[in-house]
């Protein structure tokens, strides 16, 4: 792992979907077994360029997600490396049983990509706003459950998924993300990334909340609080070592996720702590509610996911230290 944090964390001009498509094209160039599957959302996901260049390696199943997961599993049984995409709610809750049996239980090699995680579903609203996708996938044995933070991490992650046999679920923002890592940064699967060190509290964040957590850490610094920030991009297998080290060295944890705290990152971190080193935790995330329509900044405030709430949670959890 070799990380370089962006000098200034601002919105990347490039969209995640463009990077997604270009990395897949790069992989397909040298590997005829890379297959892109979609359920009639290639236009939305920006994979038309892939389809145009590699029509023989593209399968648009139509609006039939269950069949798509099964087809992907079958393709993999003959040695293909399928990446199956649809919106995150349909890539998880709609096809939970297909992912369980055809992909995971049968030990096939299927890469599942669910787009528009949590509040980034924005104008598609509550029906399309998954706060449960990672939790559903986390409950299936042997799955790797991933949330890339920005384009730099996404590019690394796609290559890692292609090279690693097994079922991985990746939730993916389609449009723009805050750029957190400079190009050339490298990561390690299952290892949390430390963005900054601290001694009073550790903020364990993922996806949308990483940039918010980083911002919260600097706000806390101004208030005289030293916060460590960990980016837990891999929810499963989770980096127990980093969590326990944080508990030992800072004695208080805040989790921050664009997801229901039930079954989410908050739950995953708490599971590690209660089994090994009980530590006060505050959970920033969706508090068991459905989503709704709105722009991302509205929803971030509505579900209390932004830096100001992380700061409050940090202060609260520090006060709870024994």
């Amino acid at each position, binding site marked *: 792992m070799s990380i370089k944090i962006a000098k200034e964390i601002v919105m990347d001009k490039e969209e995640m979907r463009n990077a997604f498509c270009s990395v897949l094209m790069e992989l397909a160039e040298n590997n005829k077994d890379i297959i892109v599957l979609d359920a009639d959302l290639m236009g939305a996901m920006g994979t038309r360029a892939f389809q145009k260049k590699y029509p023989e390696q593209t399968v648009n199943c139509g609006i039939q997600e*269950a*069949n798509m997961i099964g*087809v992907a599993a*079958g393709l993999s*049984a*003959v040695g293909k490396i*399928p990446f199956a995409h649809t919106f995150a709610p349909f890539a998880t809750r709609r096809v939970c049983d297909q992912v*369980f*049996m055809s992909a995971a239980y049968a030990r096939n090699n299927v890469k599942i990509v669910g787009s528009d995680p949590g509040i980034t579903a924005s104008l598609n609203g509550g029906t399309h706003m998954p706060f449960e996708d990672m939790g559903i996938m986390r409950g299936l044995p042997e799955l790797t459950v991933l949330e890339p933070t920005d384009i730099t991490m996404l590019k690394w992650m796609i290559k890692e998924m292609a090279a690693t046999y097994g079922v991985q679920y990746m939730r993916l923002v389609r449009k723009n993300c805050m750029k957190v890592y400079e190009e050339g940064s490298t990561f390690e699967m299952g290892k949390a990334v430390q963005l900054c060190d601290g001694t009073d509290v550790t903020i364990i964040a993922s996806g949308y909340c990483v940039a918010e957590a980083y911002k919260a850490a600097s706000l806390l610094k101004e208030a005289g609080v030293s916060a460590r920030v960990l980016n837990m991009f891999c929810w499963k297998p989770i980096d127990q070592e980093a969590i326990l080290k944080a508990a030992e060295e800072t004695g208080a944890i805040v989790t921050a996720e664009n997801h229901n705290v039930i079954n989410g990152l908050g739950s995953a971190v708490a599971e590690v702590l209660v089994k090994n080193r009980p530590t006060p935790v505050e959970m920033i995330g969706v508090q068991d509610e459905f989503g709704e329509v709105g722009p991302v900044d509205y929803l971030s405030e509505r579900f209390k996911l932004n830096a100001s709430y992380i700061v409050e949670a940090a202060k609260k959890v520090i006060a709870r230290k024994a």
Partner: protein
Amino acid sequence: MLSENKVKELKKFSKQIQIETVKMIASLGVGHLGGSLSIADALAVLYGEQMKYDPKNPKWAGRDWFICSKGHAGPAVYSALALKQFFPMSELKTLNRPGTKLPSHCDRLKTPGIDMTTGSLGQGSSTAAGIALAHKMNHMDNRIYLMLGDGEIDEGQVWEMALFTGTQKLTNLIAFVDCNKLQLDGPTCEICDVGNVAQKFEDFGWYAQSVDGHDVVAINEAIEKAKAQHEKPSMIVLNTEKAHGWTMFANKIGSHSTTISADQLEDALREMNAAMKSIEEGK
């Protein structure tokens, strides 16, 4: 055209599959009897005549694939595989015992010769489509055979697959629906009436045929016709009887999953051995 001897051999093979199926279920005392017995004749044609496979190398890349989407019919498939030496016959008595290679539903990781894990109904249809598609992509001419149940086709996923496969023109896929007309809770026509199965698949862009699912000659001919056309995926509707070959359970609603006592086993073997003798004598 099958020779007279071949026909006799296939009929005997089918009867052996039935006998071993009943014995293995009886050895545990309970199991999925009805839907296992109803596909014995199709299995006999597949493993006795049509399919390319190597029991010593079950994952041979040149093989034809068989996906039993009605995964609970595992016992019949296991019988066929054991009779064709994929594993020792003695394994059959381990059905559903702790640590067995022969679980209730087909598992590609546990049983030599099982090509795909099935059990959650409908899902074998899509995995079979994916397997067929991968072979097409690789320009390989292997055949992919898929066995569906008529109760199973209540599942919407089967019709997603039908639409997809018809559109993709996966001519290397030959699917069957075992129309034994009974599902767990009763007659299929009362629970979820699918109507004319062959017609429906034809409407989905398939080449569909309907045959007597207990006539090995008819099944074989249908497969030959399916192979001879190069435009569409193939559906062969097998008109069958649930728990075929055992009068005590045949066409009975409770035959889907049932207990089998020692006395009942004796009854089954008496009837099936007599049938075997008739086949051998050419009656």
